[in-house]
């Protein structure tokens, strides 16, 4: 397969701050998730890919064409930006239709396309309300509508699911998947793994301006599993609980919390540990009040990968 979006040795600085560092990447048709914590460089990559920023070093291209100052390219590219920013004094319909004017469609078609895009994101009823009065979820949806209204081949979505309620997220995920089924290319960013996982199996891990890993979700999951996890257990008798795990090969380290009721266990095998906890409750009658996993997030995975 040929790459739709390609970056070669791409670097971007904001003054002395490094936004992206020597990134080489090829994104093919289908959905690709750009995954990384806040400030990782996801938005910088997307801004470079959509011609908002000019690379300091390297190139980024869509269909082989460099994106900086290439307006014609955007006939086939749709972009949903992350910031909650709009022309507030227009209605949802005027916003989408107004931006459609820039593609040179006939007036009638502009109206039809805008209406269709707003219908897709369930904003038909509210299309004549000013954006100023929209809820966060509606604003997110109208932003998505403007990105798809011109029927782009390549869709670049920066945190499109943020601010949406669970139902809204589900609908949008279904919609984005529909684009993939039509053979289009979607690049979507998020800092939440389950969101990306719901969308695609192809993931690019970005951290501190670098691509840490690229692969499918099971591979990322494996990385997470290989990462030592901290499990915090609040119990009426943490010392008796700890005694049960001494000698367990899955347990790397145990410490007691300052409150005297918390046991923090570091393990490479979470499932095994949870099994042991269940047994402790059932067999030894140890009361467990709360189980939490303070580092069960992407940041911890990234820190683990960076430190590796």
């Amino acid at each position, binding site marked *: 397969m040929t790459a739709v979006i390609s970056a070669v040795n791409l670097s971007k600085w904001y003054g002395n701050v490094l936004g992206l560092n020597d990134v080489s990447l090829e994104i093919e048709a289908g959905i690709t998730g750009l995954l990384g914590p806040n400030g990782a460089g996801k938005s910088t990559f997307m801004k470079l890919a959509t011609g908002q920023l000019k690379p300091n070093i390297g190139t980024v291209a869509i269909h082989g064409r460099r994106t900086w100052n290439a307006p*014609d390219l955007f006939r086939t590219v749709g972009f949903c930006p992350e910031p909650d920013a709009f022309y507030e004094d227009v209605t949802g319909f005027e916003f989408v239709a107004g931006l459609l004017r820039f593609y040179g469609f006939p007036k009638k078609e502009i109206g039809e396309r805008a209406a269709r895009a707003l219908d897709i994101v369930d904003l038909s009823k509210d299309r004549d309300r000013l954006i100023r009065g929209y809820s966060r979820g509606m604003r997110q949806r109208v932003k998505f509508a403007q990105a798809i209204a011109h029927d782009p081949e390549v869709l670049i979505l920066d945190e499109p699911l943020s601010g949406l309620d669970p139902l809204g997220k589900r609908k949008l995920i279904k919609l984005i998947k529909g684009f993939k089924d039509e053979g289009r290319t979607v690049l979507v960013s998020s800092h939440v793994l389950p969101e990306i996982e719901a969308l695609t199996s192809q993931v690019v891990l970005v951290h501190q301006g670098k691509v840490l890993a690229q692969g499918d979700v099971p591979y990322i999951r494996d990385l997470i599993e290989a990462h030592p996890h901290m499990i915090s257990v609040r119990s009426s008798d943490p010392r008796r609980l700890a005694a049960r795990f001494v000698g367990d090969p899955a347990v790397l380290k145990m410490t007691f919390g300052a409150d005297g009721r918390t046991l923090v266990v570091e393990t490479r095998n979470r499932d095994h540990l949870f099994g042991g906890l269940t047994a402790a409750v059932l067999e030894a009658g140890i009361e467990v009040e709360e189980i939490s996993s303070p580092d069960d997030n992407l940041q911890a995975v990234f820190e683990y990968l960076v430190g590796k």
Partner: protein
Amino acid sequence: MTIRSAAREVFGFFFVLVRRTGRTRTFALLGLIPVALAVVARVFLRGRSGDMAAVSTEILMVFFLQFYIIILALFFGTSIAAEEVENRTLVYLITRPVPKPAIVFGKFAAYSALMGGMTALGLAISFFILNAARLGEPALYATFFRYLGVLVLGILAYTAFFAFLGTVLKRAIILGLVFGFGWETAIQYFPGSTQRFSIVHYLKSLLPYRPGGGGGRGVALLLFRLEPTAPLLAVLALVGITAVFLALTCVLFRAKEYLSED
């Protein structure tokens, strides 16, 4: 899309958009102050058409020429690029198949049309209230259109200049105020060719020049030391200023990378 057709679409989009902003409403109301002044003058100067013509010229010179079109151009001109960056809406424009110069041309045209409309409205109402006794004279209409033409040329030149400032600087308003109400006010009274480094010099050169008065004491003061440029040259200078600063704005806007706070 060609720059021309894209600019037309940008114009259409922003002409609708800008009319709805609070800023436009405020400036539209401000533009009606001369109407109130004209009504007051008409009440107090009833029957003295010479005095009312003088008030009419004062309104043109002091309010429209030296205040209103400058303040309009300053706020609308600097916002051509800056408001898109500050409001983080630039992304919606530059991720479209629209050449960046078309964004500048389209917004410039939309804002200039709006400013021209607001200025024409205030000028027309106040002018005809004050000159109601002469409505049958064709010369009155020639004067009105001459005034309006001067103001439109002023709007275009100032807006292009301030658009350039807004593209170069992050906080262009302050420098714009210094230019509009400092430099422009002071330099026009300098003798010799120095006054040619102001936009207002060329605008005043297009107005009827009556040394020693004839238009009232205030006008005599404002025209004091004016060494007018020939009308054709003045028009060419104003068109040139507009074209040069608009072209510079386009070049800069195309080359510049805008980083939003996020």
